[in-house]
C-alpha cells in the first residue's frame, strides 16, 4: 500500500517540543501524548486530572491550537510543533508577562490547573491582544479550576499588558501584614515547575494498582495469588491485608479507627480496596481489574439512612447498633418553652447530597527507602497525621518514616485522610523498591471521602418583636461505610446550628448513620454548610411570615459581644457578625432596587430575579480538643533567616501568610530569608490544614516564634524589646539607634543547625471541654460572614444563574487581602456548585463530565468586603477564613430563588429539574 504508515508496537518518531527537536522511541499504538510528555520527556507541567478531556489540565498547543494531551495519540504528532506551559513561560515574552500577571493577581492557588490555564490564555493572547471577558471565558472554558473561583484567572489574563514578566528574584524582607503579597511559592506554579503528587517519581518506577470492590457490599475470596505473580513476570508483588505488619485500620479519632487499608473478607462500599498489584508500568497501565484472581459474591447493601436504621438490617460495621455511628448534642435553656412563647414558628425538612471535593489533582505519591528510613512523598493536608497513621499500620517507630509532602493540587478536606500512602509504603517495604501510585479520576471519586449527605429537620420560633425564642434542630448525616471525620461533623454541627444569632432556648441533636457508600469525611465546613442551608432558608420563611426585612431580621438577632452562644460561651470582644450584616446594608438596598427594576422591565417574562442573604459563622480549630502548632526559625551567621514553616499550603497561602505574621513579629526590615517547608524530619508539626486553623493557630505560633527570636537579639543588643531591627550584611542593629549598639552575626557561635539565634514556639488554642449538655468553650475563636446573592431564575426551564454575590467577611485583621479575596471567590463558587449542580451518586457520577462543578462560564460577579473586628486571641487580631467563605453561599442563593419566585427549594442541589418541579408544584397549590 502506498501513502500509508503502519506503526506496530514500538515506533520511533520526532517532533518539536517547546522549540527543541525531540525524538522518542518505542511509542506504543494509542499511547497518549500526555503520557509520552510526562514519562518519556519529563515534561511534567502537563498535568493529568481526568484522562478524558473533562478538566483541561493537560492542555498543550499543537501547531498553534490548544488540545488535550490526554486525548491525543502521540503517533499523531510526528513532525508537529508542541508548546507546553514551561516552554511558553520560559521562551516567550508574552508567556513571562502572563506568568507575572498570574502571580500579581493571585490567579494561581493550588496551581494544578495553572499550566492548562496559561496554555489556553497564551493561545488566546496570540491572536487577541485585547480580549473581552467573554473571549477569555470561551478560551479558558475547557480548563476546570476548583480553588480560585476563576475571577482572578480572568484578571490575570486581562492584566497581562500591565504586568511585568515573572522573575525568580530573591525576595528581600518579609512581606508585612496587610500587604497583598504574591504567593511566595507561586513562581514554580506559574512556570509549571511545581511538583505535585504524581510529579516526583522517576520514570519506570514500579507502579501500584489497587484492586477495588465493584459492589456496594460483597464477600470475596482470592484465587491463586502466588500463581498470578509467577505467571506475570512484570508483577513484583501482590499486597493484601496479610502483608500489613501493624494494624490494618486507619481513621481519625480514638475509638473510630475503623477503615481497613485492605478489606478482610467483606468489602463495605463500591471502590473499597481489597488488594494491590505492584508491577512494571507496561503491565499496570494495561491491566484490567477483571483479570485479577478474585471471586466476588455480592451481598445485600444499604445506601439510604432511613433503611440503615431499620431493625433487622445488617450492620455496616460490626458493633454499631442500627448503624448509628455516633451522636452530637447541645442544649441550652428550654427549647420547647421557647417555641411555645413564640408568636410565629416555622419548620422544615431539608435534604442535601453527597458532594465530591473534585480537586483537579487525583491523589498521588511516591515512596522509596533512604537507607533504613521509609520516605513517603504524597499530596496531603497533614504530614504528621499521615506519619502517625503509617507508624501504626506498618509497625514502625517514628524515626523509620519520613513524610515529605508534595505540592497539593487542591484538597478541601479530603486529603486529610490517608489515600495512596499505605499502599505505597507497603509496596516499597515488600519489594524494597521505589513505588508510585496515582489514582485515576474514577478511583478518586469512588474511594475518597465526600461531604455528608444530610437530612435535617428544624423548627424556629420568634416573638412579636422578631426575636428568636427557640430553635430545635435535628440532623442525620450519612457517613458512609467508615468513620473518617464523621464524629467531627456530628459534634461541630450542633454547636453551629444556631447560626451567629442569640438563641436563648436551643436543642440540637445529630446522628451519623453508616451506609454502604463511600466514606463521608471532612469537606470545607464540616457539616456546617448543610446546617446553615437549612437554618438560613427557614429564617427567610419566618421573616416573610412576620413581615420583616430578611437583612434587618438577621441584624436584630445577631450575636454580639457579651452574649452567650448556644454553648454558653461569651466573648467580650471580637464578635463580628453584626458588622458583616451591616456592611451588606447599602448593597442590599441597591440590589433590591435593581431587582425590582429588572422584574418590572421583564413583566410576564420567564426570567425573574431575586436577592437573598444568609449569615455564617465557624469556630476555628478543633472542637474542644488540643490542636497545637509549632513554628521554628533561626538566623545563620550570614544574616539569612530560615523559617521552618510546616503549615501545609494547599493553595490557600499558608506559605505566604505565616511568613507575613512571623516577619511582623520579628520586626527586621529587609532581612533575607528562606522558607523551609513541611517535612517531618526538618520542620516541626504545624498541625493539619483544616478547620480554618492555620492563620489563627500556626499564625500565633509564628508570631510567638518571631517574638522569641527578636527577644534574643534585642537582649544581646541590650535594646528594648519593642525596637525594630535592621540588618546590613551580617551587622544587626536597632533601627532607631543604629550606632548605639550593633552585633556582628558572623562573630557568633552557631549550633548544629548552623543557627546563631534560634527559636521554636508552640500555640494551642485554649478551649473548654463541653459538658453533658454541650456547654463549654469549644473554640477559642470564631470567624463571621454574611453574603448576599442576586439570582436570576428561568421559570420555564428551572435554570438558576447567580448574577452577583457580595460577601462580607470578618477576618479580624486582614493579613493578606489578595489571598482573602482568593479564598472568598473560591468558596463562593464552590458554594454555588453545591447549591445548584453538584451531586455524587455512587456508581453514576464518578467522573468530571457526569459530576458537574462550575466552569469559568458559571461564575457570578463577586464583591468582597473585608471586615476587621480584631480577635483578642488571633495573631495581630486575625481570624480563620478558609471554611467560612462557603458556608452562607448556598442559602443566600436559595433565598434569592425564594425572593424571585416565592418558592423555597429544600433539596440540594437545586438542579433545573428540581427547581422547575418546585415552581410547578407551587402553582398547582394555588
Amino acid at each position: 500500500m502506498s501513502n500509508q504508515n503502519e506503526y506496530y508496537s514500538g515506533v520511533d518518531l520526532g517532533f518539536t517540543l517547546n522549540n527543541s527537536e525531540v525524538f522518542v522511541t518505542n511509542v506504543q499504538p494509542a499511547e497518549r501524548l500526555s503520557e509520552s510528555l510526562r514519562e518519556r520527556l519529563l515534561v511534567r507541567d502537563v498535568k493529568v486530572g481526568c484522562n478524558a478531556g473533562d478538566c483541561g489540565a493537560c492542555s498543550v498547543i499543537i501547531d498553534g491550537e490548544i488540545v488535550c494531551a490526554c486525548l491525543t495519540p502521540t503517533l499523531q504528532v510526528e513532525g508537529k510543533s508542541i508548546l507546553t506551559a514551561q516552554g511558553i513561560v520560559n521562551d516567550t515574552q508574552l508567556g513571562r508577562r502572563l506568568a507575572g500577571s498570574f502571580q500579581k493577581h493571585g490567579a494561581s492557588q493550588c496551581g494544578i490547573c495553572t499550566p492548562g490555564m496559561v496554555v489556553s490564555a497564551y493561545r488566546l493572547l496570540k491572536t487577541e491582544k485585547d480580549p473581552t471577558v467573554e473571549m477569555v471565558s470561551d478560551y479558558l472554558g475547557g480548563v476546570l479550576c476548583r480553588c480560585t473561583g476563576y475571577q482572578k484567572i480572568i484578571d490575570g489574563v486581562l492584566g497581562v499588558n500591565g504586568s511585568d514578566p515573572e522573575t525568580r528574584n530573591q525576595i528581600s524582607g518579609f512581606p508585612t501584614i496587610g500587604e497583598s503579597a504574591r504567593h511566595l511559592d507561586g513562581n514554580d506554579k506559574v512556570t509549571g515547575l511545581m511538583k505535585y503528587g504524581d510529579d516526583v517519581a522517576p520514570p519506570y518506577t514500579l507502579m501500584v494498582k489497587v484492586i477495588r470492590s465493584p459492589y456496594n457490599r460483597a464477600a470475596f475470596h482470592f484465587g491463586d495469588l502466588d500463581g498470578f505473580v509467577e505467571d506475570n513476570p512484570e508483577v513484583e508483588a501482590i499486597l493484601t491485608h496479610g502483608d500489613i505488619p501493624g494494624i490494618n485500620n486507619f481513621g481519625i479519632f480514638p475509638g473510630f479507627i475503623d477503615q481497613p487499608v485492605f478489606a478482610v473478607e467483606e468489602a463495605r462500599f463500591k471502590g473499597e480496596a481489597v488488594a494491590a498489584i505492584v508491577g512494571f508500568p507496561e503491565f499496570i497501565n494495561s491491566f484490567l481489574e477483571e483479570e485479577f484472581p478474585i471471586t466476588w459474591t455480592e451481598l445485600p447493601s444499604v445506601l439510604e439512612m432511613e433503611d440503615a436504621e431499620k431493625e433487622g438490617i445488617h450492620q455496616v460495621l460490626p458493633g454499631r447498633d442500627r448503624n448509628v455511628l455516633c451522636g452530637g448534642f447541645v442544649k441550652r435553656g428550654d427549647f420547647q418553652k421557647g417555641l411555645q412563647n413564640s408568636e410565629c414558628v416555622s419548620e422544615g425538612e431539608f435534604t442535601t447530597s453527597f458532594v465530591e471535593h473534585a480537586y483537579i489533582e487525583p491523589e498521588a505519591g511516591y515512596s522509596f527507602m533512604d537507607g533504613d528510613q521509609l520516605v513517603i512523598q504524597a499530596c496531603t493536608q497533614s504530614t504528621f497525621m499521615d506519619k502517625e497513621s503509617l507508624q501504626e499500620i506498618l509497625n514502625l517507630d517514628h524515626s523509620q518514616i519520613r513524610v515529605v509532602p508534595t505540592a497539593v493540587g487542591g484538597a478541601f478536606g479530603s486529603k486529610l485522610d490517608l489515600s495512596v500512602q499505605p499502599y505505597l509504603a507497603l509496596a516499597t517495604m515488600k519489594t524494597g523498591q521505589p513505588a508510585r501510585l496515582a489514582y485515576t479520576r474514577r478511583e478518586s471519586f469512588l474511594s475518597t471521602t465526600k461531604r455528608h449527605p444530610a437530612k435535617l429537620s428544624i423548627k424556629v420560633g420568634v416573638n412579636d418583636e422578631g426575636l428568636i425564642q427557640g430553635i430545635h434542630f435535628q440532623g442525620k448525616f450519612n457517613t458512609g461505610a467508615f468513620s473518617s471525620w464523621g464524629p467531627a461533623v456530628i459534634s461541630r454541627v450542633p454547636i453551629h446550628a444556631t447560626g451567629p444569632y442569640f438563641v436563648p432556648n436551643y436543642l440540637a441533636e445529630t446522628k451519623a448513620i453508616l451506609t454502604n457508600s463511600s466514606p463521608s469525611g471532612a469537606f470545607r465546613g464540616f457539616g456546617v454548610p448543610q446546617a446553615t442551608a437549612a437554618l438560613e432558608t427557614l429564617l427567610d420563611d419566618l421573616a416573610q411570615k412576620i413581615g420583616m426585612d430578611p437583612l434587618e431580621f438577621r441584624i436584630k438577632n445577631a450575636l454580639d459581644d457579651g452574649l452567650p452562644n448556644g454553648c454558653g460561651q461569651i466573648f467580650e470582644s471580637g464578635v463580628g457578625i453584626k458588622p458583616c450584616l451591616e456592611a451588606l446594608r447599602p448593597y442590599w438596598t441597591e440590589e433590591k432596587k435593581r431587582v425590582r427594576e429588572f422584574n418590572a422591565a421583564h413583566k410576564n417574562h420567564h426570567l425573574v430575579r431575586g436577592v437573598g442573604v444568609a449569615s455564617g459563622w465557624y469556630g476555628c480549630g478543633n472542637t474542644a480538643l488540643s490542636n497545637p502548632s509549632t513554628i521554628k526559625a533561626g538566623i545563620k551567621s550570614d544574616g539569612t533567616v530560615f523559617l521552618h514553616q510546616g503549615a501545609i499550603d494547599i493553595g490557600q497561602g499558608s506559605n505566604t501568610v505565616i511568613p507575613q505574621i512571623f516577619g511582623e513579629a520579628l520586626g527586621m526590615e529587609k532581612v533575607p530569608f528562606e522558607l523551609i517547608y513541611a517535612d517531618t524530619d526538618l520542620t516541626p508539626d504545624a498541625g493539619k490544614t483544616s478547620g480554618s486553623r492555620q492563620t489563627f493557630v500556626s499564625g500565633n505560633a509564628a508570631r510567638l516564634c518571631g517574638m522569641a527570636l527578636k527577644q534574643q537579639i534585642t537582649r544581646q543588643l541590650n535594646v528594648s524589646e519593642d525596637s525594630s531591627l535592621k540588618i546590613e550584611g551580617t551587622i544587626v542593629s536597632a533601627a532607631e539607634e543604629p550606632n548605639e549598639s550593633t552585633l556582628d552575626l558572623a562573630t557568633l557561635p552557631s549550633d548544629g543547625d548552623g543557627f546563631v539565634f534560634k527559636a521554636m514556639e508552640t500555640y494551642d488554642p485554649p478551649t473548654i471541654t463541653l459538658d453533658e449538655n454541650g456547654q463549654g468553650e469549644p473554640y477559642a475563636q470564631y470567624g463571621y460572614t454574611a453574603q448576599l446573592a442576586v439570582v436570576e431564575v428561568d421559570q420555564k426551564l428551572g435554570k438558576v444563574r447567580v448574577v452577583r454575590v457580595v460577601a462580607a467577611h470578618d477576618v479580624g485583621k486582614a493579613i493578606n487581602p489578595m489571598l482573602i479575596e482568593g479564598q472568598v471567590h473560591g468558596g463562593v463558587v464552590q458554594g454555588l456548585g453545591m447549591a445548584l449542580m453538584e451531586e455524587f451518586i455512587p456508581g453514576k457520577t464518578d467522573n468530571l463530565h457526569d459530576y458537574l462543578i462550575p466552569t469559568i462560564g458559571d461564575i457570578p460577579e463577586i464583591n468582597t468586603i473585608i471586615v476587621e473586628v480584631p480577635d483578642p486571641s488571633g495573631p495581630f487580631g486575625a481570624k480563620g477564613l478558609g471554611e467560612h467563605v462557603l458556608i452562607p453561599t448556598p442559602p443566600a442563593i436559595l433565598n434569592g430563588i425564594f425572593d424571585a419566585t416565592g418558592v423555597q427549594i429544600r433539596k440540594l442541589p437545586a438542579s433545573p429539574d428540581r427547581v422547575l418541579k418546585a415552581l410547578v408544584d407551587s402553582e398547582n397549590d394555588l
Partner: protein
Amino acid sequence: MVHIFPENLSSALASMEIPAKVIAGCTDFYPSLENGHVPDRIVDVSKVDEMVGITKTTPGWRIGGSTTWTKIIDYPFPPAFDGLKAAAREVGSIQIQNTGTIAGNICNASPAADGIPPLLTLDAMVEVQSADSTRLVNVEDFVLGPRKVDLGTNELVTAIWVPETRNNTTSSFLKLGSRKYLVISIAMVAVTLSISPQGLIEFLNIAVGSCSPVARRMPVLEKKLTGLRAEDLLDDIRIEVGDLTGLTPITDIRGTSEYRQSAVRELCQSTIRDAIVKSLEIT
C-alpha cells in the same frame, strides 16, 4: 497491536479489509478505554486527505468525515448552517472542538451527540465507503440507536453531505445543560426554516436531541407550523403534547423524564423564535 495511518482514501479503505477500530479526534476513544483493552488494530483516519475539509459542489456541501468542529465553525457557510455552527461551539470545549470530528460524533451515536440534531434539520446524508462500494444514507437512517450505527466492519464514514439549501434559510440551535462549558445536554433543539416574501413559514425542520435513544425530527410540529404567519409565532407558539411525537425522555442524572418533557417544549419555542428573528433580520 498496530496503528495504521493512511494518508489517502484508497489506502484507508484497503486497511478496513481487516476489522479495526477507527479513530480520528479520539475525544470519545480515550474516555472509552478506561474499562477496556487498547484495540489490537487501529486505523487512524485523521490524516486522510479526502476525509478532511469542506467543499462546495453542485448538489451541496461535502464535509469530510475527519473535519473538526473548529473547521466547521470557521467555514463561510450560509446562514442555514448557523445551527450546526452553534452546535459545534457547544461541543465540550475549544480543546475538544479542535480535535473532535463530525463523523466521530455521528459514529459514537450518543443520544446527546451535539452534531446530530442540526444535521437532521439540514437533511444531511452520510457518505459510507468500503473498498468496493459507496453509499449515501440519511443521517436518521444511519444512526440506529445508542452506540449503534449502520456501518459494516469494512466501511468508513468518509463524509457528510448537506444538500443545497434555499437562499433564505436560517437556522438555530439551543442546548440545555446544567453549566456553561464542558456539559452534556439535558435536551437540545435544532431548527432550520425559511419565510416567504408574504411572511409565511415556507418550510420548517425541527429536531430534538437527548430526549430519545436517537435524536429525532418532529414532523407533526413541523407540519402544524408550516404556512403560518412567522410574526405571529414570535408571540405565541402553541405546542401540545401530541406535537412532539416519538420522544421518550428518560430520567437520568441530568434530569427527570418529566422535566425533559416540559423543557423540550420551551426549547422548541425558543429555538423556532430565534430562527424566525434571524430570518426577519435578513429580509
